């Protein structure tokens, strides 16, 4: 025993390689026990991957239209085809359409034509584009060799645009607006809430009253009013950022409250007093002693705030006051599904709604799991 201790002193390498698990490892272990959260994490990760690789994954351009195929129904991808001579072939393909024009109703109706087989091709060549804005590519994950043949895996909208491609591009906008909004909220929330909680006093009272005032306003009319005030001649990018700012205008209040609460409760903790008595500066106390002990809570709170942002953007865009065409987001896509006639004839236009539900639930479960795991010591 004694000799063991002696060698420990002689070899301080022990200090550098602690056997204990780090905070992060403890959090991960706790997080993994929450199965729903784990599933949520994978789904969220998959969605964000889609958002990142949108141009590569979408078989056609989101704006490409074809009036011959308005409201074309979804084609099912099939893998095994039987030829006329009875032999079998393996390879993904979709069937073509047989279209008839209904003279009375003045519209085209489509039926799947099992005779026509349109083979799908992996890494199909395409027009050159830049992946995520900077990687030049001229190949898509999959596509058809002849660009004239129809490919509508999730169906087409009223202009004959491919819903799948639009959905994939919409994912990018909708998910990134959630992240950007939360980042902006987090920035203001941490700074304002932090000041408020750490220094207290009149500043704290003023900030709290302002937050109460903002939160007492009904959000939808406020958003509508602000969104309606945006100049119509703004470019797509400008509108995008303006909407982000409008969403975080309310979002920061929630996070500021969380941050302030944590600061208030930590400020009187003995270990913070100890740091003050060590002579540490306010900056050091905040960044080294206080923030690390609630950063995980903040991340969890921020994760739980993302779905709110996504929903808000979807709601605004659905009402036609958020993002405007030609920007593709889930909200603008759902605008097409506003009337019952369209829904009756083209129910596939509701797929963006399913995406919204799935991502919101996943983010909520993920956030819940994070929040539970943020307390790895079960304090």
């Amino acid at each position, binding site marked *: 025993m004694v000799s063991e201790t002696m060698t420990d*002193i002689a070899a301080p390498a*022990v*200090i550098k390689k*602690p056997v204990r698990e780090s905070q992060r490892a403890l959090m991960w272990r706790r997080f993994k026990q929450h199965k729903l959260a784990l599933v949520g994490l994978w789904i969220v990760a998959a969605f964000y991957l889609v958002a990142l690789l949108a141009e590569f994954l979408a078989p056609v351009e989101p704006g490409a239209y074809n009036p011959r195929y308005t409201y074309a129904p979804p084609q099912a991808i099939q893998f095994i085809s039987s030829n006329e001579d009875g032999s079998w072939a393996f390879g993904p393909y979709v069937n073509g359409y047989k279209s008839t024009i209904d003279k009375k109703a003045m519209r085209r109706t489509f039926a799947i034509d099992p005779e026509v087989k349109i083979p799908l091709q992996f890494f199909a060549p395409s027009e050159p584009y830049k992946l995520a804005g900077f990687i030049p590519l001229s190949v898509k994950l999959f596509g058809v060799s002849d660009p004239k043949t129809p490919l509508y895996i999730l169906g087409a909208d009223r202009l004959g645009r491919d819903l799948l491609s639009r959905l994939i591009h919409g994912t990018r906008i909708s998910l990134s607006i959630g992240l950007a909004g939360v980042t902006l909220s987090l920035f203001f929330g941490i700074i304002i809430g932090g000041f408020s909680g750490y220094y207290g006093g009149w500043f704290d009272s003023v900030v709290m009253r302002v937050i109460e005032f903002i939160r007492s306003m009904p959000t939808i009319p406020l958003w509508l009013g602000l969104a309606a005030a945006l100049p119509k001649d703004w470019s797509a990018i400008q509108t995008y950022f303006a909407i982000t700012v409008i969403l975080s205008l309310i979002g920061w209040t929630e996070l500021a409250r969380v941050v302030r609460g944590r600061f208030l409760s930590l400020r009187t903790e003995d270990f913070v007093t100890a*740091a*003050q008595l*060590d*002579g540490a500066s306010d900056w050091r106390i905040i960044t080294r002693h206080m923030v690390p002990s609630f950063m995980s809570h903040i991340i969890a709170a921020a994760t739980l705030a993302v779905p709110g942002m996504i929903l808000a953007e979807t709601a605004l865009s659905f009402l036609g006051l958020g993002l405007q065409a030609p920007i593709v987001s889930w909200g603008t896509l759902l605008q097409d599904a506003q009337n019952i006639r369209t829904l009756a004839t083209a129910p596939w236009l509701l797929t963006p709604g399913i995406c919204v539900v799935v991502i919101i639930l996943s983010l909520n479960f993920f956030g819940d799991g994070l929040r539970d795991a943020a307390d790895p*010591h079960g*304090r």
Partner: protein
Amino acid sequence: MSTLLKVENLSKSYSLNSGLFGPTRTLAALSDVNLTVEAGETLAVVGESGCGKTTLGRCIIKAQPATAGTVTYYPKGHEAVELTALNKRQIKPWRQDIRMIFQDPMSSLNPNMRVFDIVAEPLRIHKIAKGKELEDRVVSTLEKVGIAADGVGRYPHAFSGGQRQRIGIARALVLDPKLVIADEAVSALDVSIQAQILNLLEDLKSDFGLTYIFISHDLGVVNYIADRVVVMYLGHVVENAPTEMLFERPRHPYTEVLLEALPIADPLRRKGRNVEVRGEIPYLGNRPVGCPFHTRCRYAQDICRAERPALRPIHGTAQQAACHFAESLDLKGAYEAPATGTYA
């Protein structure tokens, strides 16, 4: 012995706001506290909860600003420093000399920092050591308080209460301080651990040449560790005496009551108790006129209700007491002749 720290007329009051438009009242937690701490002694500050002993410690170390009065520190080979007059930047170098040990070992260590970083933090803040030197100093300080070197990479939650208190002590001692304020340093620990920590504090005192201000409500602990005792009541110092004298013959009725409340593990001696404290401790915002203790004192006379006695030396002793009848009262101490009789 030379004086290390002098507290003069130290007062601390809090203002209480009752509502937005309500009246502002002041609540005096400390009033006119005077005491000196000699280099090398252990000065205990005792009293009931709410008597201002913790506030005194926090005002001395400037964890809270005092409302009035001065705290003067006399460093060796340096002219006297009036701590109460310094701002945050000016006081920083003196924070190395005066350190604090906290009551609750669960909340006084940052749960997100490894033990090594907790103890190294003061060295880093004061830029005293870095690299290998810092490592050596942290590890050797932890060794001295009885934490093995293989524990330095762990988080505080991996340690027991007693071990955590040792880490807290290491954090206080790593800067090589002169004066350590131990605020109820053993109160949160169970009795066997208390003894270990008290012995550790005693050992460290001689190793490091420390002076302690030991804040406690436990007279048993105080009797064990202190050289001198300051008794506080309602923010006033009511008695200041060498430990033995105070336990032998207290000079203030409040001290007598405190000593009487010491638990006695002997049923025969317990029977002989007759001093009981009357009433409740008065609300601080509504302190009695005259002697602060007169509402509960069984020796109180008219003068006690009218005039506040000052803390004054008792003739012929090394004791100081704030009582009009300090010389004439024959108060009962805690050292008594062994009980006679049989354990039936």
